[in-house]
């Protein structure tokens, strides 16, 4: 074990997320009739490797490991798994892991892409405002991830209730109205964090480049994401868009982020400068 790198430890964590995802498919088919301790333990083990990978990286590079896209993605995943482990300590909420593990696995696979950690120890972000900016943005994406987990749960339970499946009654999933509230609140929290994150980026730009806005691909992309989530919340609060459509909106928006974040980041001149 001594010769293993932080990436190796993270790889082990992703492996456990993968096993947990497979086990979750089994649980989905069974319909969440019992709290799934096995899944909780799998994710707890993955959390151990995940944390160790981050800590090892921090000690190796003698800095807080939130300096490039790989590390940022690790932090998003870590936020989600920690949140799940806290909720999952209550047996009635332990089934949440079945919805969190596919997202964690996807985030893990995404993080392991070579391009994300191409320059290894070389920090991409520096400075106090920059740190606050990235922490807020990453927390926002972690929260949007949680809203999509709640959205998946909503769609599953709504489908079973619509089609009168007995598993809707037997499952430990919360009532769909409560799930809708969870989606709404997590989206709102994520939106506030993203707004604050974008605000701090303006301050940071003013301090370093004497401008509030730069027409960088990733800045424009972040504003687009902000607008998407803002529209979703506006439709929900102002125009009574609820239920299935709202859940699909939360899942679709996060899927869009997951599919585009990396690509846009790579072409961003200020976030990923060519050395």
């Amino acid at each position, binding site marked *: 074990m001594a010769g293993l790198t932080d990436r190796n430890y993270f790889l082990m964590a992703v492996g456990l997320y993968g096993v947990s995802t497979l086990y979750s498919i089994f649980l989905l088919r069974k319909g969440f009739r019992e709290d799934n301790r096995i899944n909780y333990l799998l994710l707890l083990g993955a959390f151990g490797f995940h944390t160790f990978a981050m800590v090892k990286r921090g000690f190796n590079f003698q800095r807080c490991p939130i300096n490039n896209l790989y590390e940022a993605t690790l932090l998003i995943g870590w936020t989600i798994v920690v949140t799940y482990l806290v909720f999952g300590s209550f047996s009635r909420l332990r089934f949440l892991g079945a919805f969190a593990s596919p997202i964690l696995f996807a985030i893990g696979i995404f993080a392991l892409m070579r391009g994300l950690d191409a320059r290894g120890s070389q920090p991409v972000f520096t400075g106090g405002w920059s740190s606050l900016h990235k922490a807020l943005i990453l927390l926002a994406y972690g929260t949007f991830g949680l809203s999509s987990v709640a959205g998946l749960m909503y769609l599953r339970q709504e489908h079973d209730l619509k089609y009168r499946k007995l598993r809707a*009654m037997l499952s430990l999933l919360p009532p769909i109205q409560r799930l809708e509230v969870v989606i709404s609140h997590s989206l709102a929290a994520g939106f506030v964090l993203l707004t604050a994150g974008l605000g701090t980026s303006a301050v940071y730009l003013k301090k370093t480049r004497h401008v509030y806005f730069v027409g960088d691909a990733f800045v424009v992309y972040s504003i687009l994401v902000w607008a998407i989530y803002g529209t979703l919340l506006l439709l929900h609060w102002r125009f009574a868009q609820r239920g299935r459509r709202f859940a699909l909106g939360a899942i679709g928006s996060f899927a869009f982020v997951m599919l585009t974040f990396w690509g846009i980041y790579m072409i961003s001149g200020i976030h990923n400068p060519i050395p």
Partner: protein
Amino acid sequence: MPLVVIGLSHHTSPVTVRERFAFAEARIPAALQLLRESGIVSEAVILSTCNRVEIYAATGLQPLKAFVELEGFLIKCADYRDPMTDEIYTLTEPHSMHHLFKVACGLDSMVLGETEILGQLKKAYELSLQHNHTSSILNKAFQKAFNVAKHIRTETAIQRGSVSVGSVAVELAEKIFSAVDNRQVMVIGAGDTSEKTARALLSRGARSIIVSNRSHERALALAAEMGGRAVQFDEWAGEFAKIDIVISSTAAPHYILDRAKLEPLMKLRKNRPLLLIDIAVPRDIEPEVNLLENVYLYNIDDLQAIAEDYLRQRKEEIARCEAIIVEKARALLEARGTIRVPGESRVILGT
């Protein structure tokens, strides 16, 4: 000193016999006193419910002799003079212990897995305890029975789900709404099942009931009975913006609510979830309304199917429960050091 059980239940006797053997609660302490003074038993608990009358006792007599005496006691208390065949059953250890645990878990109940019996058993035990008619044998056996019931409730699905239409409707509401309390319920057509379903929702805290019926007098009467209010039959749709759950059971020969009528009403409701329970035959609500978003429609067959599925699932859990019970009873008897060779311990006494 072994635990023995003698009694009659819904398995062995009809209600016409059970009701004659039943003990009124006020009579039980005196009956227990009499039983102990007779010297047949040293400890006893009498359980008398609508589905069973049983004596759980610790006796120093040979079981067969004790059963003859106990049956005589039951017949004397009931003043029962008709001929009996196999209504009364008797059990010795370990089957008596298994039986006690099964009763506590609802495995011996008419509605498999029901929980009311546990409360009744606790009450019977506490009554006996208060009057000092129990000691170490029954105290340990009953405490263990209550523990086993709790264990089985949490570890198996024997008590999961509802097996009546009314309680399935309540459970559905709990799967849709954050909380059933504060929900507004509308009853369209004041039939017996709709009334029972509405009462089940009220018992879980539903805020209020609006009743609409072709006979407005009947609607007024039911609304008054349930603390709700009545609306004219042709005005019920006007209340839709406020309500969350509709129970419909009119005798109308056609649909009284269809998709075209509900669609604009959902906009008025700002797309809040709506649970429609159609227990009318012929049906009151067009099935296509279920295609609308945030609308959940269940008819009587759907509710019945869920109740039957639950019952089937409960039956599938019996073997698991019995294995737990045998294991727990064995542990208790081993701890007491009185484990016996299991043999034919169920004796049918007839007169």
